[in-house]
């Protein structure tokens, strides 16, 4: 598959799949593992696992890594560009609309409600993060890390980065019990 064709596949899937990163990764799995057989299950598993330990957004890391396996750095840069640039442009337009229309009574009502919804979704994102790491055998560890980082942020002048470094060090030193 040439670079142009590859970019078209990423453009189509990356910009038409709603539901966040996991939905997009699932769509890419269908396309590259099941349909086109360009990735084996093992390669998909490796990419999926590594994308979760790559800093930043997992889905973009998955795209960068999978495209690199297909066509090197150029393919990787092209795939990330075609997936994120159009959605970023749309996000800027939406942000602009929020700012422009917030003075209008009805638009202002809609924006205030969507902003309140965004807050609820942030709490949900925190819960989903905890759920993704939750194992009964590691419950104490999870509770200490979540509560500890909350308290460090709430009660001390430590920055978020300092708190994350402390948590990472604690995680490195504190052995995990065997998974059930």
């Amino acid at each position, binding site marked *: 598959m040439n670079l142009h064709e590859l970019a078209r596949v990423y453009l189509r899937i990356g910009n038409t799949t709603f539901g966040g990163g996991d939905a997009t990764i699932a769509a890419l799995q269908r396309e590259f593992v099941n349909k086109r057989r360009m990735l084996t299950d093992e390669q998909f598993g490796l990419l999926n696992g590594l*994308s979760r330990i790559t800093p930043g957004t997992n889905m973009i890391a998955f795209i960068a890594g999978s495209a690199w396996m297909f066509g090197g750095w150029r393919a990787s840069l092209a795939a990330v560009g075609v997936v994120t640039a159009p959605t970023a442009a749309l996000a800027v337009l939406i942000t602009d609309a929020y700012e422009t229309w917030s003075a209008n009574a009805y638009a202002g009502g809609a924006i205030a409600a969507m902003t309140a919804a965004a807050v609820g979704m942030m709490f949900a994102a925190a819960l989903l993060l905890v759920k993704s790491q939750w194992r009964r055998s590691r419950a104490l560890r999870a509770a200490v890390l979540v509560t500890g980082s909350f308290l460090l942020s709430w009660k001390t002048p430590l920055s978020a980065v300092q708190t994350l470094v402390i948590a990472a060090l604690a995680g490195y030193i504190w052995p995990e019990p065997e998974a059930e």
Partner: protein
Amino acid sequence: MNAFLLYLVLLKATCTSFSGMASLPVLRNDLVEHYHLLTDEQLTRAIAAGRTGPGPIGLYIVCAGYLAGGIPGAAAGLAAMNTPAFFIILLLKWLGVRAERPAVQRTIRSSLLAAAGLLIATSVRLAESAVTSPLEAGISAAAFGLLAFTAVDSVWIMAGAAAVGVAARLLQP
């Protein structure tokens, strides 16, 4: 702040997190508390705008960059969102099997759990400015429930919230 410096500030947030929204506490620390480039209200609106269309959850960084520095700021946000993704190539090339080491895995798991704690603290702070009426509290709780416990897409949650917001204004005496 020029676009390159803004890029570095946003990059600090994306490079120190392992999922889309986990970068929020670091971002708020810098843009709201340290540099005063955004208010909490603007940051919350950036998050709402980022969740209104398709794309990754971390897209709010572009919206925050736009509010902080216009189009160059949005470009800085896009670059900061994308840059850490290429670390996966280094991981594929050089780390390979070592990424599966228990110490590496548990360090990352700890960072994710700490990010959740930080995200709760940040969400509480943002809620103080964004949720100011019983109606907004209800919308916020409904959005939480729908995203956490159902498969409803965030775009539909945003559309529903907007409809409720407009209806509330129409029904206002």
